[in-house]
């Protein structure tokens, strides 16, 4: 019967099609823009790579006047400040997340969450300015005292070496740590909140104390998400331009001493772009942008892989 079969055909597919078209267009736009960025940057970097070759990555000196364009100091500075930021931010953020999800009574939870979220909306230039006018001068004597304690101690004596200024790797790391704490804290809090009550009850019923329950159930459950949030924070710390630029000291240096001024990729690009007159220098700065882009991409890929693997393990697929 033709009539009955007619009923099976869906009637109005226009809205459906329009929706599909819109999402497709949106997705395509993002891919196109990303591709365009990658292509432009890679293309404009070519000159630098052609003139400098691999030494662009291995040369510690950045001396445009002498036509020496090495990015190593800045890569190093980026890595060091981001590492300091993560090392400082992770314990604090996890502390906040654990406190808000496991310990704090509900009346205290809201204000803490609101306050950490507020830190996230402070513009980064404000952090940078606060770093220069307040933090850096206050930190100079602290750095001096700390480096005094470690004077002569192997390894640590070199890491916490002599300090002369408040604008250092450490200062930048500290500012970045404050900036990424809300990211790590809020994502960790969210994954911890998804820890099923049944997991927590299961641990407690086997005689776990509260801390043992947190370790065994909450942290096990949240491990993937926490790693992901830390990686996101790391990516943010690596890419952060202005706050780091203002307090890092802007002098290319590769040294174990975290109390020494240094410089980082985004900060150099921001400060030197305006006075970059030669094509090679411009290209070198762009190549640094590309380097940073690739570094953050790698961090993100690793993060995604780690998170996926732990999710899979949790679902019992491996």
């Amino acid at each position, binding site marked *: 019967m033709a009539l009955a079969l007619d009923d099976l055909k869906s009637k109005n597919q226009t809205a459906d099609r329009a929706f599909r078209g819109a999402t497709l267009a949106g997705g395509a736009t993002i891919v196109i823009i990303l591709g365009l960025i990658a292509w432009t940057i890679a293309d404009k970097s070519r000159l630098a790579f052609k003139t400098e070759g691999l030494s662009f990555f291995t040369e510690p000196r950045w001396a445009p006047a002498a036509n020496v364009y090495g990015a190593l100091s800045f890569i190093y500075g980026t890595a060091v400040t981001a590492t300091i930021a993560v090392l400082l931010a992770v314990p604090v953020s996890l502390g906040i997340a654990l406190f808000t999800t496991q310990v704090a009574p509900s009346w205290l939870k809201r204000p803490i969450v609101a306050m950490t979220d507020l830190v996230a909306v402070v513009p980064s230039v404000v952090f940078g300015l606060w770093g220069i006018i307040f933090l850096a001068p206050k930190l100079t004597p602290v750095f001096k005292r700390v480096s005094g304690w470690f004077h002569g101690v192997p390894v640590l004596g070199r890491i916490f070496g002599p300090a002369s200024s408040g604008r250092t790797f450490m200062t930048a790391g500290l500012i970045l740590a404050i900036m990424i704490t809300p990211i790590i804290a809020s994502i960790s809090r969210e994954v911890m909140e998804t820890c099923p009550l*049944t997991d927590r009850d299961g*641990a407690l*019923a*086997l005689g776990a104390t509260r801390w043992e329950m947190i370790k065994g159930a909450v942290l096990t459950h949240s491990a993937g998400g926490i790693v992901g949030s830390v990686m996101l924070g790391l990516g943010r710390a690596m890419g952060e331009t202005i706050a780091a630029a203002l307090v890092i000291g802007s002098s290319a240096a590769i040294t174990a001493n975290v109390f020494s001024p240094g410089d980082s990729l985004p900060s150099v690009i921001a400060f030197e772009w305006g006075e970059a007159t030669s094509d090679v220098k411009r290209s070198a700065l762009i190549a640094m942008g590309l380097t940073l882009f690739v570094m953050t991409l790698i961090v993100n890929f690793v993060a995604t892989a780690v998170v996926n693997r732990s999710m899979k393990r*949790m679902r019992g*697929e491996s």
Partner: protein
Amino acid sequence: MTEKVHTMHEPADESVDSAARSTGGVAAPANKLIFSVNDLSVDYGAFTAVRDVTLGIYANDITAFIGPSGCGKSTVLRCFNRMNDTIKSAKVHGSILYHDIDLYGPTISATQVRRHIGMVFQKPNPFPKSIYDNVAYGPRLAGLKNKSELDELVETSLRGAALWDEVKDRLKSSALGLSGGQQQRLCIGRALAVKPDVILMDEPCSALDPIATARIEDLMQEIKQQYTIIIVTHNMQQAARVSDRTAFFTTEVNSESDRRTGVLVEYGRTDSIFSQPVDDRTEQYVTGRFG
């Protein structure tokens, strides 16, 4: 909490009627009294979920708690291992004596109580860890580190839970890859590994298919030689099949609020609860004529 087991005596000075209730109406109890619950009431905030529960639990018995949903079966069960301590609004009144020791006494640690009195939950809740690590979790908490002792304990516990043969070749793979019934047996094994005296089960089969349910019921019969079991079930046939004693709870209209408070209606040998219930409400419930 001490390991010391005091001499047992029946709860004293009670009227004949309530004594009959609280001892399960058995003239010559075969087993020792392991718990005596006295005037137990539990509030969640201002709401009294269940009140005035008085009953005795006997060692190596399977005791079933039955009754309509919301009558406080889980709430009462969770008092036996102080799981209600984890709910902020919950307040427990009355007492539960475990071998004459008040579980809610000021010097008693809830953590230690839970090592003596294990629990299996409604929804199988293995940790997102390997099968081995699930079973080893409790013993490790208790400080057992020796690898070979752990291996042995994991094996005996899994054998005890009738799961060993199915998982012995994949102890290192995730517990979440097991079927629902296997997961629940793993949870039983995990509880056994702590070497408790008592195992509380809150509707342990409600998420399982009939075959998996039958396996758990068989398992309960096997382990009752060594353990005392209290099981909450909404399934009357299950209570009738597995339990030695049955406590029937229902709800009563509350004088202070419009919410209904749970009460213990009748407690006794399972066969008499099902064949000759004393209370009308029990009869209506067990014959399926419940409102």
